[in-house]
């Protein structure tokens, strides 16, 4: 068990033959991910990384039975790529692209509302199920298999948390990078819910940051439905209001979306919130009764 992706996932790469697509697809293959092909409009019929290239997702799905896609296309075309994947019935769409206009994402969200596709991202590192499938750009070698699920808005901070968790004697089931944009496909709450329902996952790490209300929403859900220990960290305790901190969505707009406000709500909902990012792994180990 695991969530969203596993050994059986058949993955198609959108933007397969570009620089990013090529590099990360080969890393994914090396990790053992079942990459069944890719899509680059106009290059259909060619072979790339020993796998077939298709002109459209529809054709790729028809020929390979792909059920997961990962998107490495430039921001101007990424929204279209997401919708193409959804139209072709892809179940899990992972969009790595950073810098998609918000206007396009409003359209995407609306388009997906009556489709059976789950979007992860955009502007995210992807998803990894340890030792099974890496559909993303994370360094695979740090993800030792184990019992902790991770939900995070950030890339390198996820790697940091995972490294600490493994160092503390634990391992990872699935890590979901949900992305740092104002509009994303899968919310913190939805990702937490998936992990809460996964029998292999025994504890969950939630890494949030300033901006938006997703962490508070997740915390309230956990209070009502949580059955496993949750450790939380919110980045940006020292970020000034009104300034965008790298991620398009990382901006304090009001009293409710500061790090302090989110941490308070999470604590009130029974989440073990750490103030220092250096304590994430240790806290999870303590919650699960494991000593490093």
């Amino acid at each position, binding site marked *: 068990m695991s969530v969203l992706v596993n050994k059986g996932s058949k993955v198609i790469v959108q933007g397969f033959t570009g620089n990013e697509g090529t590099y990360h697809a080969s890393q994914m293959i090396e990790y053992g991910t079942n990459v069944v092909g890719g899509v680059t409009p106009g290059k259909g019929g060619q072979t790339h990384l020993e796998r077939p290239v298709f002109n459209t997702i529809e054709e790729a799905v028809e020929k390979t039975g792909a059920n997961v896609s990962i998107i490495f296309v430039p921001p*101007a075309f990424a929204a279209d790529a997401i919708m193409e994947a959804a139209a072709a019935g892809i179940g899990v769409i992972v969009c790595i692209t950073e810098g998609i206009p918000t206007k396009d994402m409003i359209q995407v969200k609306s388009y997906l509302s009556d489709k059976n596709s789950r979007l992860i991202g955009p502007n995210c590192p992807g998803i990894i199920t340890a030792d099974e499938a890496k559909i993303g750009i994370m360094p695979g070698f740090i993800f030792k298999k184990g019992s902790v699920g991770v939900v995070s808005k950030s890339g390198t901070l996820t790697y*940091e948390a995972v*490294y600490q968790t493994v160092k503390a004697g634990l391992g990872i089931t699935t890590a979901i990078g949900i992305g740092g944009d104002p509009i994303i496909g899968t919310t913190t709450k939805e990702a937490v819910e998936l992990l809460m329902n996964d029998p292999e996952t025994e504890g969950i790490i939630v890494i949030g940051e300033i901006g938006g209300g997703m962490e508070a929403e997740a915390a309230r859900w956990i209070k009502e439905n949580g059955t496993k220990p949750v450790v939380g960290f919110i980045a940006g305790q020292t970020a000034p209001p009104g300034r*965008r901190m*790298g991620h398009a*969505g990382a901006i304090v707009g009001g009293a409710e979306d500061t790090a302090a406000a989110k941490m308070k709500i999470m604590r009130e909902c029974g989440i073990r919130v750490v103030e*220092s990012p250096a304590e994430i792994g240790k806290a999870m180990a303590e919650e699960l009764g494991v000593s490093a």
Partner: protein
Amino acid sequence: MNIHEYQGKQILKSFGVRVQEGIVAETPEQAVEAAKKLKEDYNSDWVVVKAQIHAGGRGKGGGVKLAKNLDEVKQRATDIIGMQLVTPQTGPEGKKVNKVLIAQDVYYPGESETKEFYMSVLLDRARGRNIIMYSTEGGMDIEQVAEKTPHLIFKEEIDPKVGLRPFQARKVAFNLGLDGAAFKDMTKFVAALYKAYESTDSSLFEINPVLKTSDDKILAVDAKVNLDENGLFRHPDYAAMRDVTEEDPTEVEAGESNLNYVKLDGNVGCMVNGAGLAMATMDIIKLAGGEPANFLDVGGTANAQTVKAGFNIILKDPNVKAILINIFGGIVRCDRVAQGVIDAYKEIGNIPVPIIVRLQGTNAEEAKRLIDESGLEVYSAILLKEAADLVTKVLS
């Protein structure tokens, strides 16, 4: 991206939104000419001299003044151009005014009372849809309205599948208590405003106040327009509206080197790969007894060149007493970053503050060895906790 009021009004006007007309001026002489032209074109006897800076609350700081004749126009413009305008949004040091907008007087007397409203268009993040937020309480700080009289703030959500519908525009006008010609004009105003918002890839419109004039016209007296930076590639003409004199010069320079930098007030500089880890690093500096001097994300390619550019940016800040470099190497190899730090250090020469380098991930041990054997005044760490302790140590 922020733009000035006069630029925002230009954009709104191009979509058929009625605005308070005005002409931008950089000298008192230009201001007088502008006032003459407004008299000619709009029969405006009085004009308003409005400081053009990227901050709200300009009136409170003395940046918006009425002028009843040309002598007063010259006097007001002389006072405001070049002043260091302090408003609740600028911070105590204020912002230098380089331009003023000479605007027509729209509060002229007439058959009915003038009325001020509030209107904004923005993204509701939780819903993933745009909303029009509006209130009968115009001309005031909307945060205060929200706190004291939340029932006077209305929201209208726009379904992206069909866009703003006419019944929604009518609802806005009804809720604002309008009738007759003003009602009709408000529905047009709302429709044009939303069209402008969507067409321009904007991330915020705030029109405060929206005015009903004494002859029942609806117009935008002020215009705060923020554009979505990710959408600018579709609008080169708006991208050209960027005014770098409104931004921190170091932030502008960092942007030119593809570094994402935000200046802060603290004493420990930091250089990190990834936005989330960068914020977390700022937080750990604070917990270690320092205050972060900046946010700096060097992105996915931390090499000697980016590290050197990062050093140069951070060292421009005289408050910096130490620098913490925190790189989690995934795709980036730590030994390469370490070599980058060493090369950059040697190239810059004498760096006057201690440097702590924490490299973790791919080839971290090798990286630590390179740093330790370089003979430079650089402390190395592998665990984040060790890096924090080193910050505490070098500050004490």
